[in-house]
């Protein structure tokens, strides 16, 4: 069973600083990591391989420095890493990214399952995975929380929905985006790290892929970011005191009035 895992390198955001003028994130000195939600997809890929054999290929699109994310994926146990990188791809939105990744997946060829995280922690759109399924005309399962059973032509999975779980039987090949519930990502081992160091990455640029260049990069992206603003945290609370019982009723009335004006009750 051959598996492709799509991963993204994102800035580590636990201690993020925002530029007050541009509204964008200050990236200087911020570490780049594998999108935490993609780690679950990697783990699922590795478990499927352990059960059914085959190989796991990690794929990412990004600047050359994104190779670090692929090396980490290999250290976790992936067999190969494919880096899709080209200046022409810079500024690609979700649509354009999905288009480019689809071309890369076509070029890789043999695969039974394409796995992706539910969404990336930086853009937070969750669109690229489903969009690729559309581009490649693959059956799509989003928010997958469990894999019940799989053989060479079909897979039975469970999706996490707001109201509960949904069971799907899907033909393969298929694309699945997974949620945290599905697994516990393993840590990279020393042997894995050593193997990753020796493993040469496969690099695709615009020339290697069959693409209409008008559909890639900033030019090919229908999304336009007009303005970025960080929401301001405002605390417009009021203090009501009721030091003895006589003031209690008055304070309660004021509180009710306040909640009404805020349309909370």
């Amino acid at each position, binding site marked *: 069973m051959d598996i492709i895992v799509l991963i993204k390198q994102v800035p*580590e955001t*636990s201690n993020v600083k925002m530029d007050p003028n541009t509204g964008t994130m200050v990236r200087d000195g911020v570490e780049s*990591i*594998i999108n935490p939600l993609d780690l679950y997809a990697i783990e699922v890929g590795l478990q499927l391989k352990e059960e059914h054999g085959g190989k796991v290929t990690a794929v990412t699109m990004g600047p050359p420095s994104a190779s670090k994310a692929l090396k980490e994926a290999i*250290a976790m146990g992936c067999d190969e890493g494919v880096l899709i990188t080209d200046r022409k791809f810079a500024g690609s939105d979700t649509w354009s990214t999905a288009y480019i990744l689809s071309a890369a997946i076509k070029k890789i060829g043999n695969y039974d399952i394409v796995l992706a995280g539910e969404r990336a922690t930086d853009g937070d759109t969750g669109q690229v995975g489903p969009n690729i399924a559309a581009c490649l005309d693959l059956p799509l399962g989003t928010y997958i929380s469990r894999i019940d059973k799989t053989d060479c032509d079909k897979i039975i999975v469970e999706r996490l929905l707001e109201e509960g779980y949904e069971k799907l039987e899907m033909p393969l090949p298929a694309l699945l985006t997974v949620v945290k519930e599905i697994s516990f990502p393993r*840590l*990279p*081992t020393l*042997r894995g*790290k050593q193997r990753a160091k020796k493993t040469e990455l496969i690099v695709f640029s615009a020339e290697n892929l069959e693409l209409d260049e008008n559909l890639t990069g900033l030019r090919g992206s229908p999304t336009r970011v007009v303005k970025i603003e960080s929401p301001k945290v405002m605390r417009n609370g009021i203090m009501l005191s009721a030091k003895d019982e006589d003031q209690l009723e008055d304070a309660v009335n004021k509180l009710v009035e306040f909640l009404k004006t805020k349309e909370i009750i």
Partner: protein
Amino acid sequence: MKYNTLNAEIIKELENILGSKNIMLDEEKIENYSHDETPKEFAHMPEVVVTPTDAKQVSEIMKLANKHLIPVTPRAAGSGLSGGAIPIYGGILLSMEKLNKVIETDYENMMIVVEPGLVTNEINRLVEDKGLFFAGYPMSLLSCCIGGNIAENAGGGKAIKYGVTGQYVMGLEVVLPTGEIVELGGKNVKDVTGYDLKSLIIGSEGTLGVVTKAIIKLSPKPKYATDLLVLFEDVNSAIKIVPIIISKGGIVPTSIEFMDKLSVHTTCDYLNEHLPYQKAGAMLLIEVDGTREDIVEADAETIGELCLENGAIEVYVADNHTTQERVWNVRRNIAEAFMVYSPEQSLEDIVVPIANIPLLMPEIEKISAKYGIKMPTYGHAGDGNLHTTLVKNPDMTMEEWFETEDKVLKELYEVVYSLGGKLSGEHGIGIKRRDYLKNHVSETELMLMKKIKRAFDPNNIMNPGKIFSL
């Protein structure tokens, strides 16, 4: 020692020195100053809490207290683990909370001059942009204060490479119990001008004087760090590797943290952490850091290989924020995990020469089995400092627990001393270990300590009853 209690007249005098806004008498407020991080049975209420704003006020308070024989207990964050900041004779609680300023940043000399009530991490936050840090911080740096670190000569997880607080204290301003203000040490890297009195103050647990200003040495901050989480089948193979890393590997790691089977399993269960820990009888968390990524990586690899050659089951590598948080999370949550089992605990701080840790571990197991209580052991294997924790069996009554705790501690300390160890590596003696100390220190050493105490504090008003009873 018979102390006087506070009366209206003395309180009036305190008001004259400090102004009424720096004095607290309200029982509800001063209750917060009656305990530190030791169990509540050690707590004791002060009679008054004062919050001086400069050394002059501290000096006046000390003169007043000395004249009227009122005990004075200095306190910074109150995050200590030995009861050092608890006013066991009541009296005046001298809180350094308003002495919390940075007085000078001297980047040419790579030093910072601070007041004792400053939260330790504030130093690191302030100098971070200059690529510097204060390397002698303890693990509680987000909540503790530098004054407490100096009083306890605190250490932490990185002591094997960076040492403890005292190594970074260049100079001190100290108010003596008799009220004089004295400057000790300074900004000179070398200084053998007379007795090293500054070092006597460091680690004296607030019994010799009150630190009102400290000159702290800063160091270049390492840019890269890699952590190895290493699983071993048993304690012995985990501990044996420690001296090998340094002698054979030629590398001084930033930390070597040890967790025994009980600590690992309980904490992983508590955190729902699915590392394949079931087969592990012990775990080491080893960190290397440095200014060049390739060297840090190579050092980590050398250490990892040594571990594998010496019987490690698996070596995991964490070199980014996600994985590093995950591995350290296990180490940081041990105490928390056992709180779920029983909140009654005695957190110990024993230290033995590193080569003797393998001999210590089976003895701890024996004591644990004999008294039927859990005794998870974890801590800083790199420097032999282990936080064996006595956890009350939930079936025990409190009386049974106190009785068992006392017996277990006595036996544990006997074992520790027979292996060339000591009672406390970084938490101090305070009140928690005071009555055990006298069994293990020679008469001559105790006499010297008492003479020093009397030389500084003839009336024994400065944090009395800590370390030893005079």
